[in-house]
């Protein structure tokens, strides 16, 4: 409270202290805020520059939302008014920045934006600095408005850089002209792409070259501050060059300059040089230049004392890795891993895994690398990494034998990591037969090797090993009894963990009961995995944050013309690799023959899905019949095949309707990317309005999901919308289309009317276009009651005692649409001798008559007696 009182005093000293207190200690205490705001308002209006300055400082440093509301309008005016003092302008600019940052919506873009840009030309460099900060932030949100600032910034920058040391006297810091301002201007320029105007661009290039040249000249002063300031400007200039990425000469020069810094005495410079080089490595022009420094970087990795510099060196190695130096880099990273800090180990593991996979020419090297990785840093090898190595070994035949042998040898080491046991167990289970010929790795030895590690492992590993044992039973009948003994032992059958117990019991039973054929089918080799985006990459992105890795990856994706081409930009599936045992005993899903090589030639993992997912499948067979059945039926099963069942339930009222579509997953596997879409032709879209809510894209096995469709009949229509469903089942892609039974007669409402009215209207609709007649043979016995029921089911009211001929059926109703209501009259005349019907429809609109006649004929003709439930 005292502080607020001080604010309102007239003496500068007291005011100063008051503001100081507030800016250091304020929080959103409501009482005080209002009082403070008042005091600030008074000060701003006072026109005394010192007071205004103080007030603006306070707003700038505190800048809460209430302040923004109060002052957002005034400050731009102060900023661009001609008569404000320079120091006030400075403060006002940064004040505006603060308010913009806290509440961007309250700061309107007015006509003051152009004047703000002009501030860049001001004499007072302090104002220019402040204005540059302001424009940098504003330009990031509205680049269009501040485009003119680019040329001004460039001219200002060139004036500063080329000035002699006596010009900018006060702002020259150890013989470097206005370093902070130069840095800020360069940052502003980074917000925009390289200028299109050639004059401006030429000036900018000149400027950048001057800065680069100056770095080469002998220093004007021995002091470290001079070189630091000079280098600050230099690094910012290099960032700008990298950002523009358009002038190869500049890029190469920058790279050379950074290379010199890599061996500089000062650690700071080495750190910054490594960081900038990381960004440079992404650019295509300088990538090769960067690679020449690889030895220096590796040396830095080994000898640097500072851990953050070493970290940067690792990042740079990752960035500059490509086919030519991949093996060297991976080897270096592995050796570094042995001594690395624990906090960064996981990241390095992921990076090594990604690099090894991407640039592996020979997959035996890849397997070696991953096994080494597990050996060195087993704890930090996350699940994705070893899933991936197993996926790759299974998908590639040539490396299976080698993998089995290497894994076997690795397992013989006295102390091996649990992850190695997991990988080893899996691979030996699948491919142990490939090395069984060698007496050193006979089946029994393999089994004993794995079993010796059994007790040391955690539950999931043990579960995996049990699966391996049963696979051994299949592969090597000679060890069957040994394994059965193990499974039979109490520690398995009565194990505390349910999973282990279940597996032991089931496997034991399977091995005793099943014949060799069944066993062989059940335990057949795993089929090749379908290609997915490497989940390792997704994990790395999550760890590092979006900035660093994505830029490198995307730059590389554009550059590399590999067949492997880097990870596809498909969404990552989070560890949805089928666990080894699930697929194995999934007797429902028949495993395809695994012995053949992966589908396409060219060796590397290729996407199995070659068809484009957007093509709509042709209508499923039988959909026409179903459709016809649904003309008068609102509930029932629309479509069914082995995988999917589609049920309908609909209700209609006047011109609106609602349909519930039920999708049932008949299998036990999940459907992924389940997308039902409603397709209407253009005419249909105009006449029928459909609204749906989206459906959850994953449908669990045995589950049913529901989709609601809201229907409105705008005007009469003839076609029916098509429901197209696409989803992924197992590894295959499914596409189903059915016609959705939304027909005109759904909007038919029965109307009762007396005989005279009927005939009156009948005569009114005597226009030949308004009448449609159809004569058709009756397919089924012509029973009166049933026919009556059908007509009612169709939606029309059955009018008794209207037609002079009692055998005839007469009906009337109204079709409701959004725009109009169309009255319809129908008369059905049966001819019992000829077993034929004559159907006459009269409505006020030709198309309606046509359509209704069609529908009713189909319906009467097609529907057999038993399948028609007379309900609406």
């Amino acid at each position, binding site marked *: 409270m005292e502080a607020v009182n001080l604010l309102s005093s007239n003496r500068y000293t007291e005011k100063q202290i008051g503001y100081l207190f507030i800016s250091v200690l304020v929080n959103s205490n409501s009482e005080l805020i209002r009082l403070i705001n008042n005091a600030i308002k008074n000060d701003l209006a006072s026109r005394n520059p010192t007071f205004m300055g103080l007030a603006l400082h306070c707003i700038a440093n505190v800048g809460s939302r209430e302040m923004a509301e109060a002052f957002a309008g005034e400050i731009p005016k102060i900023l661009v008014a001609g008569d404000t003092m320079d120091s006030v302008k400075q403060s006002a600019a940064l004040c505006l920045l603060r308010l913009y940052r806290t509440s961007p919506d309250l700061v309107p873009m007015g006509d003051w934006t152009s004047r703000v840009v002009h501030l860049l030309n001001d004499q007072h460099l302090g104002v220019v*600095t402040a204005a540059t900060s302001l424009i940098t932030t504003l330009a990031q949100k509205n680049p269009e408005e501040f485009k003119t600032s680019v040329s001004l910034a460039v001219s200002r920058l060139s004036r500063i850089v080329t000035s002699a040391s006596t010009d900018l006297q006060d*702002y020259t*810091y150890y013989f470097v002209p*206005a370093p902070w301002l130069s840095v800020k201007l360069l940052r502003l320029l980074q917000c925009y792409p390289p200028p299109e105007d050639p004059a401006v661009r030429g000036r900018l290039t000149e400027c950048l070259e001057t800065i680069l040249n100056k770095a080469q000249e002998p220093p004007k002063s021995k002091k470290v*501050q001079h070189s630091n*300031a000079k280098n600050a400007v230099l690094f910012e200039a290099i960032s700008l060059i990298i950002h523009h990425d358009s002038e190869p000469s500049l890029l190469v020069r920058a790279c050379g300059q950074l290379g010199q810094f890599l061996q500089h005495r000062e650690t700071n410079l080495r750190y910054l040089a490594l960081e900038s080089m990381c960004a440079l490595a992404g650019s295509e022009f300088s990538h090769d230049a960067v690679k020449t420094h690889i030895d220096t970087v590796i040396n830095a990795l080994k000898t640097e004392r*500072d851990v953050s510099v070493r970290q940067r060196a690792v990042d740079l190695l990752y960035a500059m890795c490509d086919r030519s130096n991949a093996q060297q880099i991976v080897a270096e990273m592995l050796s570094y891993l042995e001594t690395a800090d624990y906090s960064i180990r996981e990241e390095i593991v992921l990076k090594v895994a990604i690099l090894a996979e991407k640039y592996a020419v020979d997959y035996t090297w890849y397997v070696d690398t991953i096994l080494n990785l597990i050996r060195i840093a087993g704890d930090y090898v996350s699940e994705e990494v070893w899933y991936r190595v197993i996926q790759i070994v299974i998908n590639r035949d040539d490396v299976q034998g080698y993998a089995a042998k290497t894994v076997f040898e690795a397992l013989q080491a006295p102390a091996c990591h649990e992850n190695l046991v997991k990988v080893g167990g899996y691979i030996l289970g699948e491919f142990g037969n490939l090395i069984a010929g060698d007496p050193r790795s006979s089946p029994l030895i393999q089994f004993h090797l794995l079993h010796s590690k059994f007790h040391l492992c955690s539950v999931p590993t043990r579960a995996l090993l049990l699966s391996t044992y049963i696979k051994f039973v299949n592969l090597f009948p000679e060890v069957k009894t040994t394994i059965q003994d193990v499974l039979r032992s109490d520690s398995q059958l009565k194990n505390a963990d349910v999973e282990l117990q279940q597996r032991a019991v089931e496997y034991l039973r399977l091995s005793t009961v099943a014949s060799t054929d069944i066993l062989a089918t059940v335990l057949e080799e795993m089929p090749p995995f379908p290609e997915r985006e490497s989940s390792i990459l997704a994990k790395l992105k999550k760890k590092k944050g979006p900035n660093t890795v994505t830029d490198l990856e995307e730059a590389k994706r554009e550059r590399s013309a590999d067949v492997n081409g880097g990870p596809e930009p498909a969404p990552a599936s989070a560890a949805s690799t089928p666990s080894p045992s699930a697929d194995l005993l999934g007797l429902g899903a028949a495993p395809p023959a695994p012995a053949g090589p992966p589908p396409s030639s060219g060796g590397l993992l290729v996407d199995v899905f070659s068809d484009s997912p957007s093509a709509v499948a042709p209508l499923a067979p039988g959909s026409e019949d179903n459709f016809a059945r649904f003309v008068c039926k609102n509930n029932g099963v629309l479509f069914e095949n082995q995988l999917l069942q589609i049920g309908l339930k609909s209700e209609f009222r006047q011109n609106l309707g609602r349909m519930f579509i039920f999708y049932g997953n008949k299998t036990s596997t999940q459907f992924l990317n389940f997308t039902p879409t409603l397709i209407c032709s253009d005419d249909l879209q105009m006449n029928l309005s459909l609204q749906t809510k989206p459906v959850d894209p994953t449908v669990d096995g045995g589950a049913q999901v529901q989709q609601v469709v809201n229907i409105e009949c705008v005007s009469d229509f003839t076609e029916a919308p098509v429901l197209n469903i696409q989803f992924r089942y197992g590894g295959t892609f499914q596409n189903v289309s059915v016609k959705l039974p939304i027909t005109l007669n759904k909007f038919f409402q029965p109307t009762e009317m007396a005989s005279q009215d009927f005939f009156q209207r009948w005569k009114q609709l005597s226009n030949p276009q308004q009448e449609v007649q159809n004569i058709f043979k009756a397919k089924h016995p012509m029973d009166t009651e049933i026919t009556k029921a059908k007509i009612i089911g169709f939606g029309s009211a059955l009018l008794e005692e209207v037609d002079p001929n009692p055998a005839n059926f007469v009906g009337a109703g109204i079709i409701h649409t959004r725009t109009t209501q169309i009255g319809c009259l129908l008369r059905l005349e049966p001819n019992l001798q000829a077993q034929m019907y004559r159907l006459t429809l009269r409505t006020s609109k030709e198309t309606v008559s046509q359509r209704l006649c069609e529908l009713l004929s189909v319906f009467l003709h097609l529907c057999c007696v038993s399948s028609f439930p007379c309900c609406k």
Partner: protein
Amino acid sequence: MIKFFLMVNKQGQTRLSKYYEHVEISKRTLLETEVIKSCLSRSNEQCSFIEFKDFKLIYRQYAALFIVVGVNDTENEMAIYEFIHNFVEVLDEYFSRVSELDIMFNLDKVHIILDEMVLNGCIVETNRARILAPLLILDKMSES
């Protein structure tokens, strides 16, 4: 943008702290201890930029005092590093060979100087004469 500006001595006592982004008062002490811990554990040969949580620390040691500036990644590290030195030079000129005691006893003046140089997390003025002008006027007024 500069997130905070700290002057901490080797024993961990904060001599000056200025936050440009609001941090709860209770959390400030914690932050300061962590920061000083990471700075003290560095040796001479290590570089002056530390990555700390989601921002970078740039520190510089002057005798027994550490000046630490926390920035986010929009700032040029070298420029901030030199800025710290510039600030110390300004203090030097005003106090004529500044020491830790000077700062402790004239905290308000140091705040005023810092306010002149940094506003809302951006460096606004680096010209020594211009920064010290209002302070010198103030001194003259209080003397007379």
